[in-house]
Each structure stands twice: as structure tokens, then as C-alpha cells.
């Protein structure tokens, strides 16, 4: 178990967006967090990554209590997230986007006395990552000029660049075309071999396909937990979330 | 005699009142700034110049047309508002799609040009404008002599502040304005004439500044420089209040006016920086400002 939360709660004013949630994310597993809109999934992400401070509860990452740690510190400890609304560096090239992420783990971030060419040694790794997500052809394109879907793919590549121990993906497939969904599913399955992945996703076929464990959230509380087959048969989950749709 | 912090209660009350009077000017000016910033995302560096313009228009109306203070209080803001609207329509509006810094730089240039022109035409020393007869003189409040005109300033600026606040927070027009701040293209796609709205807003903001200017004319020397340094203090007021918030601007204006007034008694040397000091402290504790919405 690499990341765990106990009694996680977040109150906005009088409104409790997350209530007493316990969560365990394990190594080499894809853990899905699903639930109706507004259930509090993004908020849980924000809490885990410390973009929001929990109102109550404790969070442990790799055995360390991070309940009061700053978000950038958490990221450096190996917990990295993607955003629900796409987050790239729009006026850097695709390659640079990935290299920026590579700089930190390679201790090439604070050297203001080194030339830019010193970043050249990151190129190989960056290109590997880009080709893994099928963006190699766009390496010199400005990220702003990518279409929405390709921006999301780029974001995943950047996230992977950090070689995180835990990966938090907020709706990685949103807005993606069918073919990209296939690619990205493959990528996620691959990366999860050596790390823990926690993802929010509404695309149930993806969830069914790649997730080992599913937590269903509703109104800030855990409604059901288990593997997809179990969860998807739960009548409460069906009414609250899945409707009559077949996976 | 009752003493507060080593000074007589009476003097203390007097200074409190004076602080409130200055606060009225801060509130009016920071309100205008907040309106323009809130809706156009433009830091209106020309606000001080527009305040000065208001005073000058009143003065010139009197000199050339014999128009009295009371009429000037209406006409000058309209004139300056119109000038503002024209500037917005012809120039400022081209900058919205750019970084807000350009708006700041543009209005900075505008301020220099306006102040420079008036200094060139009317000199730096400034000119007198007398208190309207109906408000001349003063009353003895027991603890201090209060010029009636200053009392008037407090009352009328409160009225103006509350009116503006109601307009923006409580009307449909206000919600268009606020939405247009965030995503003008979309609001326009919904069928609202956004460019027109923005022009009106800038006119309103400039008009408010001019209104403060007319109010100030009988109190201060009408000089091209009257807004130059004031504007920086008002910026600080707005930062302390929290930039997005209209109510914040008003309340902070009065509060800081009072804070400054009291400093003038206890430690006058610091009275010009006390607002900046408060600003720094507030930022350290609450980066969004006292009433700011964003964290």
C-alpha cells in the first residue's frame, strides 16, 4: 500500500463535499474512483495532492504522513496528478513540455549557470515518452496548437516523465477520440505495472477494461467498493451512477 | 478630561472624524478602480488623472460658463465619463484580448499625457475653487469644528458608494457585467452587446473618479498633480480590500482613511506609509486581501 487516507473530510462552508472517506491505493494496481457528477472525486484528488487542505482525516504516502505537507513537496515525494481541465505549458513545444517535467527528477532545475544545451541529455527519455503516447511527430509543435485530445495525451506523457510512484489521473480520457482512448488505456495499463494509479473516469468500458479496483463515491461518501464486476452489479451503484447503460 | 492613548478624547474623536472624511475619498476612488478592474481587468492608472479632470472640469465650468458647484457635480462626471467612454471605445478596447498588463501600461501613459497637458496649460501650482455658499462655514460639534462641506462629503460619498454597489451586485446589468469580465466572447454569443457594456463601465468608473474630483475641488487645491500620488495610495487600498470585491473597496477605503487619520496623531511621520504597511501585513496574512474572493 503506497497511498492511504483515513477519515478524509472536506467542508466548504456548510457543505461537506467529502465525508469520512477511507482509501487505500496499492502498488501495481489501477484503482478507479467513480461516481456521479459532484460526488467529490476531484475534491478527493485535491485533498490527496494537498491542493486543498483536508478539514479532517490523515493522509499517508509511502509511510510518511503528508497531511500537512505542501503540494510541491508532495509531488517531489512521488505523488503526481493530472488535471481535469487540460494542463499543459501552452507556449512551450511538446518536447519542452516533457523536458520540463524531466528536469526535476534529473536535478537539472535550479542551475542558472548552465547552458540550455545541458538539457539535451533529457531528449532521449523525452522522445521515448512521446513516442509511447504517439506524439513524437508533434515534438516541435507548440502545445497550444494541439487539439484538445492531444493535449490530454501530452499531459499524461509529462506526468509519466516524473516517474511517479503514485499517479493520480482526473478523467484522462475526457474529450478523447476512440483511438486515443485505446492508446491511453494501454499506456496506463503499462505504467501501472510498476506504480500505483488512481484515476477518475466516467468511461465505464475503460474502467472495466483496465481497473483492478473500483471505489464508488456518492455525495462525498463511499457507496461501494470492490472489483468492477462486483461494483457494477450493485443496485445502488446502478441507480446512482450507471443508469441502465451496459458497460 | 478623558484621555485615550495619551491624547484627549475630544481630539481623538476629531481625528476619527477627519479620518472618515479622507476615507470617503479613498472609498469613492477605490470603488471606481474596483469597478473598472472587476469588469475590464484593467488597472486604471489614469484614475488619478480622471479625478483631477473632474476637479478641473468643475473649475473651468465655473470660470468660462459660470456654472455652479451643484451643476458641476452632475456635469463634470458626465463629461469625464464621456471622455473615458471615447477613450475606451477607440483605444482601450483593443487591449482586452491581451495580457491585462497592457491595460495598466496604456492607462499609465494616458495618465502621464493628461497630467502633462494640464500642467503645461495651467501650471503645477493649481487654482482655487471655493466651497459653495450653501455649504460654507462650519458647526462646532463640541469636540471639534466641522466644516459643513466636509460633512457633506461624507454623506454624499456614502450615497454614491452604496448606489454603485447596488447597481453592480443586485441588477441584471450587473450580472452581465460580471459575466463579461470572465468570458466576454461567450456572453456576447449569448446575445449581449458586450463592447457597449464595457464602454459604459469604463465611463462609469471614470465618472466616479471625476465625481470624487469635484467633491475634492473645494477642499484641495485644484492642481494637475492632485491625483498623482493619491492614486498609489488608492491602489494600496484596493489591494488591501481585495481586488475583486466592490464592497471590499468601499469598506477598506473608509477603514484605511481612519487608520491614516489616527496615525497622523500618534506618529505623523508614518502617516503616508501606514497604508502601505497595512497592505504588506494583510498580504502576508491574507494574500487575497480582506474581502478578496480568490485564495
Amino acid at each position, binding site marked *: 500500500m503506497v497511498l492511504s487516507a483515513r477519515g478524509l473530510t472536506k467542508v466548504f462552508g456548510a457543505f461537506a463535499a467529502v465525508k469520512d472517506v477511507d482509501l487505500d491505493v496499492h502498488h501495481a494496481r489501477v484503482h478507479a474512483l467513480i461516481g456521479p*457528477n459532484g460526488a467529490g472525486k476531484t475534491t478527493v484528488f485535491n485533498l490527496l495532492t494537498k491542493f486543498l487542505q483536508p478539514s479532517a482525516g490523515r493522509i499517508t504516502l509511502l509511510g510518511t504522513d503528508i497531511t500537512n505537507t505542501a503540494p510541491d513537496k508532495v509531488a517531489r515525494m512521488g505523488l503526481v496528478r493530472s488535471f481535469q481541465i487540460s494542463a499543459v505549458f501552452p507556449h512551450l513545444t511538446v518536447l519542452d513540455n516533457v523536458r520540463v517535467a524531466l528536469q526535476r527528477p534529473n536535478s537539472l532545475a535550479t542551475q542558472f549557470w548552465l547552458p540550455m544545451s545541458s538539457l539535451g541529455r533529457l531528449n532521449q527519455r523525452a522522445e521515448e515518452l512521446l513516442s509511447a503516447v504517439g506524439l513524437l511527430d508533434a515534438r516541435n509543435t507548440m502545445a497550444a496548437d494541439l487539439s484538445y*485530445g492531444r493535449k490530454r495525451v501530452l499531459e499524461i506523457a509529462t506526468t509519466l516523465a516524473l516517474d511517479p510512484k503514485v499517479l493520480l489521473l482526473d478523467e484522462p480520457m475526457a474529450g478523447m*477520440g*476512440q*483511438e486515443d482512448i485505446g492508446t491511453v488505456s494501454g499506456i496506463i495499463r503499462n505504467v501501472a505495472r510498476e506504480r500505483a494509479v488512481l484515476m477518475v473516469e466516467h468511461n465505464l468500458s475503460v474502467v472495466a477494461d483496465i481497473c483492478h479496483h473500483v471505489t464508488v463515491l456518492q455525495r462525498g461518501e463511499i457507496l461501494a467498493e470492490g472489483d468492477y464486476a462486483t461494483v457494477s452489479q450493485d443496485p445502488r451503484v446502478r441507480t446512482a451512477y*450507471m443508469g441502465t*447503460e451496459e458497460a | 478630561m478623558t484621555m485615550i492613548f495619551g491624547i484627549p478624547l475630544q481630539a481623538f474623536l476629531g481625528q476619527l472624524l477627519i479620518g472618515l472624511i479622507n476615507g470617503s475619498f479613498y472609498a469613492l476612488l477605490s470603488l471606481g478602480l474596483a469597478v473598472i478592474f472587476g469588469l475590464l481587468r484593467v488597472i486604471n492608472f489614469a484614475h488619478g488623472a480622471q479625478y483631477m479632470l473632474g476637479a478641473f472640469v468643475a473649475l473651468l465650468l465655473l470660470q468660462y460658463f459660470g456654472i455652479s458647484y451643484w451643476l458641476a457635480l452632475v456635469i463634470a462626471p458626465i463629461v469625464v465619463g464621456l471622455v473615458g467612454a471615447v477613450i475606451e471605445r477607440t483605444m482601450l478596447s483593443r487591449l482586452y484580448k491581451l495580457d491585462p498588463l497592457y491595460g495598466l501600461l496604456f492607462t499609465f501613459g494616458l495618465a502621464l499625457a493628461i497630467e502633462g497637458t494640464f500642467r503645461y496649460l495651467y501650471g503645477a501650482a493649481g487654482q482655487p475653487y471655493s466651497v459653495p455658499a450653501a455649504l460654507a462655514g462650519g458647526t462646532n460639534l463640541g469636540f471639534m469644528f466641522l466644516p459643513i462641506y466636509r460633512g457633506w462629503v461624507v454623506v454624499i460619498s456614502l450615497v454614491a458608494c452604496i448606489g454603485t454597489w447596488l447597481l453592480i451586485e443586485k441588477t441584471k446589468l450587473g450580472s452581465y457585467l460580471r459575466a463579461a469580465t470572465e468570458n466576454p466572447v461567450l456572453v456576447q454569443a*449569448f*446575445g449581449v452587446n458586450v463592447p457597449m457594456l464595457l464602454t459604459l463601465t469604463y465611463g462609469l468608473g471614470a465618472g466616479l473618479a471625476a465625481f470624487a474630483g469635484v467633491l475634492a475641488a473645494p477642499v484641495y487645491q485644484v492642481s494637475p498633480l492632485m491625483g498623482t500620488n493619491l492614486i498609489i495610495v488608492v491602489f494600496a487600498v484596493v489591494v488591501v480590500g481585495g481586488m475583486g470585491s466592490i464592497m471590499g473597496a468601499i469598506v477598506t477605503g473608509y477603514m484605511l482613511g481612519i487608520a491614516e487619520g489616527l496615525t497622523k496623531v500618534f506618529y505623523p511621520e508614518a502617516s503616508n506609509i501606514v497604508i502601505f504597511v497595512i497592505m504588506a501585513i494583510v498580504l502576508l496574512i491574507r494574500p487575497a486581501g480582506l474581502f478578496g474572493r480568490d485564495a
Partner: protein
Amino acid sequence: MKPLLEVRGLNAWYGESHVLHGVDMTVGEGEMITILGRNGVGKTTTLRTIMGIVRERKGQIMFDGRDMMGVPLHRTAHSGIGFVPEERGIFATLTVEENLLLPPVVAGSGMSLDEIYELFPNLLERRSSPGTKLSGGEQQMLAIARILRTGVRLLILDEPTEGLAPVIVQRIGEVLKTLKERGMTVLLVEQNFRFASRVADRFYLMDHGQMVADFPVGELPERMDMLHKVLGV
């Protein structure tokens, strides 16, 4: 069927990049049209150009017999077109209800506030909280809901189901059907093929800034091969 919207030879640019290369399409009164296409082929751009948001454009756009090329953006809605953008466009400084009430009503045929709240109970519950404090899905609902009030005749939706829970997607599908019954014309862009096939009357397939095919829903089975090639479905 009388065409409500006719687009001929539409070209559009972002600065120097030429994105639409002569889009042709026709949307009949009361029809529900879905544009399919891969990421980046210009679907969003097509919608934005029709709406008049992208103004570097050439070609012809006729709406209800009226030439829309010269109409300023803020008049487009008044001609009867409503737009729900890809990125939703919820206003943070406005409450949910203010967001709902924001777009001016352009015709009397819109839904009432009560009908809307019935359709989207989440919104009723959070009506007085700031718009962007809603979850992603709630924001999408709000974005659709607020256009329903205005009484436009043509609704343009850019990926309305993105990020929505399956129950909500179903509900939106039902809403769209209801709207269609009321005579509303809908033009939408969708990646969710399953959803699209359930609601649409007719499809346009887009590639490289052009419409490469168009077919009614009935021909879907026989077109699957082509769709598979172009879309990877």
C-alpha cells in the same frame, strides 16, 4: 424538410493556420445532427465559426434564410442560435442561478426555470453557490440548462457529454429527445459514439477541415467499416 441552417464552402483560419477547408452542410428544421470526427479535425472550429466567434472566415452561412456572415456576434443569438461551448463557460463570479438567468431570452418558446430544475435537480440544490464551485459534470448541466431557457431554435452543442456520469448522459439524451419533440433543431459534436448514435437523425463525418460523408442514422450499420477506419470506433 426546410433547411434551417445552410453552410457552403466555409473556410476558417486561426491567424495563419487554415483550419476549415470548405465545409458544406445542411441542417433541416427539427433535425438532430451529429458531427463525428477525430480530435483536431475542426469540429469545434466549425461550430465556433457558425456561431460567429471565429471571425476569420469565408464562405456562406444562411440561417433561416438569412445571411449570417455580416451579423455581429452579439446579434447571432437573437437570430435564434444558442451555443454550449466545449469548455462549458460557467461564470465563477455568478451563482448557479445567476448563470442560469444570464443569457437573454430571445423567444418565448424556452423552458421555465422550474422545468429546468426538474430536469437537473443538482442545480436546484446548489442554486446559490458560485458557478465554478460546481463539479465538472454539474457545470456541463448548467451550461446546457441555461441555453434551454432562451428559446433559441437551433442549439449548438460541443461535446455535451464530456465528463458526465452515465446516468447524466442518459438524462441528457432524453432531454435532447424532448427538445426535438418540441421542434428544436440541434447540431452537436460528439466523441461518445454510443450516445451520438442514440440521439442523432443524421451524421456528418469530418476530416481535415471538410465534411467527408453524411448519412442518416439508418445507414449506420452499413457505414461501420468506414467509421472504424476514420474514427477507430
